[in-house]
């Protein structure tokens, strides 16, 4: 199994029923055509039992949380009295944080739409089906593109004072630089891991880190007038 061909050819003939049939199986149709014989469990009862146990454990944890912590309930809704800050639910605080820097049509419409489109096209974005490391092939050109994108993005974020997104962007870029300078034959397992990661991995990781930081900042570090506050000083 060193260098597999781009396709596997097979012949089959049954003189009585059909003439010679030739089948070409390309590598891109990977998962469905490879038959593997491996140890399997019956869904009923083994797997369903495990699922039930998992859900029961979850139920116990949620019941304990519900016994210990009360859901928030503030005063009756009052349109004439705006709380400061008025915060959206936590999963939208990343968006609200963006709204602080960009006009609503960018932060509230354009960015979420692009994120959803990006998420939907991930599996159709067939550029790297082999999942090969980003910098392993065509390294010089890819590094140039990487520098252009990273610097362009950083300048853009700096221009709008979006430090909360700039910092995680720089951190991810720094890790990508380490990846670019790591060999897949490195003696360090971490560097081998980094070197093997494709472009989609880096985009998603960047998205995850930025989302996490923005949500955390919106939740804990924002006070009246969306000003920066330290949560331990209030």
């Amino acid at each position, binding site marked *: 199994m060193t260098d597999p061909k781009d396709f596997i050819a097979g012949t089959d003939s049954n003189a009585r029923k059909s003439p010679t049939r030739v089948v070409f199986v390309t*590598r*891109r*149709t*990977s*998962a469905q055509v490879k038959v*593997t014989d491996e*140890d399997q*469990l*019956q*869904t*009923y009862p083994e*797997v*369903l039992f*495990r699922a039930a146990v*998992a*859900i029961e454990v*979850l*139920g116990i944890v*949620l*019941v304990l949380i519900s016994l210990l*912590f*009360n*859901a*928030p*309930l*503030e*005063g*009756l*809704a*009052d*349109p004439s*009295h*705006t*709380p400061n800050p*008025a*915060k959206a*639910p936590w*999963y*939208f605080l990343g968006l*609200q944080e963006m709204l602080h820097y960009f006009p609503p*049509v960018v932060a*509230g*419409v354009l960015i979420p739409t692009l994120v959803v489109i990006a*998420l*939907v096209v*991930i*599996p*159709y974005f067939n550029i790297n089906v*082999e*999942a*090969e490391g980003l910098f392993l092939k065509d390294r010089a050109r890819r590094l140039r593109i990487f520098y252009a994108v990273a610097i362009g993005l950083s300048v853009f974020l700096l221009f709008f004072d979006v430090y909360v997104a700039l910092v995680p962007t720089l951190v991810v870029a720094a890790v990508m630089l380490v990846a670019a300078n790591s060999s*897949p*034959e490195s*003696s360090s397992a971490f560097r*081998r*891991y980094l*070197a*093997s990661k494709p472009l989609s*991995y880096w985009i*998603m990781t960047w998205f995850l880190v930025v989302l996490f930081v923005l949500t955390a900042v919106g939740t804990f570090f924002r006070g009246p007038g969306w000003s920066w506050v330290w949560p331990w000083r209030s």
Partner: protein
Amino acid sequence: MAKTIGNYFDELRGTRVWRSVFRGGTGSSTLRRSLAIQQNVFLHLFSTKVRRRMVGLSATWYLGTLTFGTFLILVVTGILLMLYYHPSVPQAYADMKDLQFVVSSGLFLRNLHRWSAHAMVFLVFAHMFKVFYRGAYRPPREFNWVIGIILLLVTLFLSYTGYLLPWDQLAFWAITVGSNIASAVPLFGNKIHFLMLGGNLVNANALLRFYVLHCMILPLTAILFIAIHFWRIRKDGGLYAQQSEPKTLAARAAGSAAAKGAQ
């Protein structure tokens, strides 16, 4: 020999009534266990067999299962909460106070619903990232990934519409902030905003609309897509197992590094 509970259960499963309900039949043979899945309208969504290594905790962390678990808890507690809730202003808020001080375990019920909702949003995100990092979105599973994105959006809308229902300051202003974003859509922004709220401001109409969305339309949508999501796992070849894909360079590199070490 004394009869165990298991014997009684086997007897029960042999009765005419049980046999009329469950088409799979009795017995613990592989055939019967397969039929128990295949002959059941709900369970036939799942594969009859699952690879053993996909059942371990590390393969999936059971994030999909747990997300479905939170959904079940939310349906049950949600229906119970509906018994005590009027989607009208300001009765909705009074119902929250009743749940807190009058209804038996009402506070617990609301707590469980609220925290499970937060848990579901979190688990949906966690499930998505886990699936991504495992590479389980790749063909032939690409459309199931898209259904997953739809379910993510449905979950967010469910949580968002539910956020308004207590009709307290937190709810009112969170929805005001959120719905104002809809106004920013070019051309149709104000129309969408009006359609969403049934008015230009968050008011009694908005509460009723969010209630209908939260208790009827969105849960039914979620159930529909969850069913397709589960069924597609089976049709697309079961839970994704890494080995069935082309070897990544990482594995090759690890192999060659090991070979070098051995020399």
